[in-house]
């Protein structure tokens, strides 16, 4: 049977690539340290497949057809299409259709109804943490897109349940493979809104404390209350919530946090210590 060997989370601010030269030396150092550490931990987990949860930044989907959650089932995905991601080494990214199918079947069995795609383009949200984390070559990836961009969003509660179900799907997959999960996005940021550029570090710190404490109800209540009051980019914390659910709500460890105004994002990096559960 498959093993869940690691659960991770990372920010994916575009300006880490597009505006890196304008980032202060101290913040460059902080971000580089965190991304390198995160990449190192993913590599150390030796995943045969990486499930990655990220939003779609208007690359695959538009408002004429906008899934709340979509699982990438393809044998191959395209690398990022953004012109400023042209130096990213991932042009074609191998998928894992068998695990993806098993995830969708498990989801349906548990009364979840994900959309499916047999060919996705994996934008910066998927690729920046992998690229800057030094993952080359990449393991095969099963991408799962959560709609964190266009309201109404999946509920925080449902995202937590998605994580739990995802871990069950991994553990019930019949092949003897190692599987890791990486959720990307957040923490606080605001894009294209009057608050653009504002970072709410107290919110981010409180959010981190809730992940550390591992109390479902308090985490969900906190996010339900606060997410509507801060910048739209924080909606991506839903992906972290799914990772938290997959890790059975235990073992959250902050790798690093950088309040980085140059990239408009309160950047967070984390892993969940699965310990004896692996």
């Amino acid at each position, binding site marked *: 049977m498959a093993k869940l060997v690691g659960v991770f989370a990372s920010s994916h601010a575009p300006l880490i690539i597009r505006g890196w030269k304008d980032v202060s030396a101290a913040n460059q150092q902080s971000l580089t340290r965190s991304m390198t550490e995160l990449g190192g931990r993913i590599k150390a987990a030796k995943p045969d497949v990486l499930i990655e949860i990220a939003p779609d*930044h*208007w*690359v695959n989907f*538009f*408002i*004429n057809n906008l899934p709340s959650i979509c699982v990438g089932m393809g044998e191959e995905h395209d690398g990022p*299409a953004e*012109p400023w991601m042209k130096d990213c080494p991932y042009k074609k990214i191998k998928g894992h259709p068998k695990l993806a199918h098993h995830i969708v079947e498990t989801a349906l069995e548990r009364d979840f109804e994900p959309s499916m795609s047999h060919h996705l383009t994996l934008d910066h949200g998927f690729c920046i943490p992998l690229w800057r984390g030094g993952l080359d070559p990449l393991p095969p990836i099963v991408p799962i897109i959560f709609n964190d*961009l*266009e309201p109404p969003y999946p509920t925080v509660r449902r995202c937590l349940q998605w994580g739990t179900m995802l871990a069950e799907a991994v553990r019930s997959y019949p092949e003897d493979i190692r599987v890791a999960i990486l959720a990307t996005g957040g923490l606080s940021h605001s*894009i*294209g*809104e*009057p*608050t*653009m*550029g504002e970072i709410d570090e107290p919110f981010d710190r409180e959010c981190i404390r809730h992940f550390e404490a591992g109390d479902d109800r308090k985490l969900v209540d906190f996010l339900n209350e606060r997410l509507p009051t801060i910048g*739209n980019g924080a909606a991506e914390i839903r992906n972290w919530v799914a990772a938290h659910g997959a890790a059975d709500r235990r073992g959250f460890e902050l790798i690093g946090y950088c309040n980085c105004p140059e990239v408009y994002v309160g950047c967070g990096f984390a892993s969940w210590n699965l310990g004896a559960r692996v």
Partner: protein
Amino acid sequence: MRDYWLSKLFFDLQSSPSLGAEYRAERKKILDRYPLKPEVRKAVERDDVVFLAARVNPYLLRFYFVVAGMPEAEFLKKVRNAGAESAARSSHG
């Protein structure tokens, strides 16, 4: 509220670098391909961030003005003023 054709214009422009280049060179020619309401088209032509912000996803708004070539500082100033201006416009009917 989402204006579908405005959203489609912004989506298409950020999806295709060649269309973006064409748009910067000949904005009118591209706009003619989209059935935009007259007031929406006027707002696009005037770079009316407040009007447009109320009708598209904020990420698409942001991507559009990058493609359209508006300097970052100018966009930030306009979008940051959008909240106050929007409130002022609605209070004046």
